[in-house]
């Protein structure tokens, strides 16, 4: 079946099987920043933003995404022009192996898009579906707080969105 959706602000028409999850389809489309951890909705490594809300792509059938707008980690910043959240995570020392980080950053982005100055409890609640085996979460919570402050200070933040098609 054909699926029409928007990925990182680019309109796409993708051929999918009805039983494929969004995670499978995104990785087939080479959005490798969307990670398969548990594949059962427990770890959050596969988190993407769907119409403004963080969701686990392993728990979404791709067919549900007809007409929807998806943001993956590739869509919020680049190595040369990282999103403030990405900068904050690096600066805070919140990254060790890095596997959980794309999902965690997207959960944080969904929060900060909705709540400019979240309390610590709100940050913990927003990240409660993202497991990390390395860090113990302290630095990640600090990173989100720092990013919130930086975004507020910079007004709109700085980030680059890849406009060109992925080939």
């Amino acid at each position, binding site marked *: 079946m054909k699926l029409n959706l928007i990925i990182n602000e680019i309109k796409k028409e993708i051929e999918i099987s009805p039983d494929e999850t969004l995670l499978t389809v995104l990785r087939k489309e080479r959005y490798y920043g969307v990670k398969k951890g548990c594949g059962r909705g427990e770890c959050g490594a596969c988190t993407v933003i769907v119409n403004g809300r963080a*969701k686990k792509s392993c728990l979404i*059938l791709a067919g549900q995404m007809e007409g929807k707008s998806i943001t993956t980690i590739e869509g919020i910043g680049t190595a040369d022009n990282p999103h403030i959240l990405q900068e904050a995570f690096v600066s805070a020392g919140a990254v060790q192996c890095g596997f959980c980080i794309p999902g965690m950053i997207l959960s944080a982005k*969904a929060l900060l898009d909705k709540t400019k100055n979240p309390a610590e409890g709100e940050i913990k609640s927003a*990240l409660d579906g993202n497991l990390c085996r390395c860090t113990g979460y302290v630095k990640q919570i600090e990173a989100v707080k720092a990013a919130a402050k930086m975004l507020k200070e910079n007004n709109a933040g700085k980030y680059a969105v890849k406009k060109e098609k992925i080939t």
Partner: protein
Amino acid sequence: MDNLKEFHNPESLKSALELLAQPGEGIYPLGGGTSISISENKKIIQLVNLDNLGLNYIKDKGGRLVIGAMTTAQDIIDSTALNDISGTVLKKCAKTIGSQQIRNAVTLGGNTCGLFVWSDMPAMLLASNAEIHLASKENERKISAEQFFLKHPAQILKKGEICIEVSFPKLDNKYLGEFIKFSRTNFDKTIMNVCVFFYLKEKKIRGLKIAVSGCISLPRRLKELESKLEGNAMDEKLPEKIIKEASVIKENLNFISDMKASKQYRKKIFETIILDAIMGTVLFS
């Protein structure tokens, strides 16, 4: 879902009901999708996505709160319409569901009709005397939560029938309410859910409703316990009375065992969680 062949995205309730009414087996409705997406059910051949039918709403309809079946747990948490005690308790219930990403996907209809042992909302719907609004191509009907949860929904729902909304009465300010989900971690599946509503008149418990789920196979009102505690004074003797009466009633319940906890453990904690729920209304209100 090795046998899933077709995925439908209807844009009207009428279209969806017509698809679901097709002859043959294997045609299933799709709500949030958090359970079906990892299902190994080989009976699923067609899925009918309910996301575009306009069933995501929360309305205050003169004394009743009406919630569309595709309203997510997060929508419930964010709602300003759910501002009486029953709405507040439903919000508290919704906040206990899974993790943030799960709350953004789980729907009231799916939680009600999927009725997995770990579904959290049914206990609240039972305790609040909710009404489940069902629709099929042929007709619509309303059924009380009490009737709906007597059996598994697969035995209640007719072919092609889906939940389109749930409603429950608004409670006035005199009521107290509480929802407790007892689980191993913040977003783990439940070991036991309890929901209570009551009010105090001359410091005595009146209008008591207690419902449990997650520890037994189907959600259940504890009417035997309600009748034992109705009219009791909210005083220093009440906790002991709750423990005593709940300990007796639990002997008639069939507790379940699963990965989260054994039936022995669930039986052991039963009266304590009920005590916490009833006393929590007063201590934390």
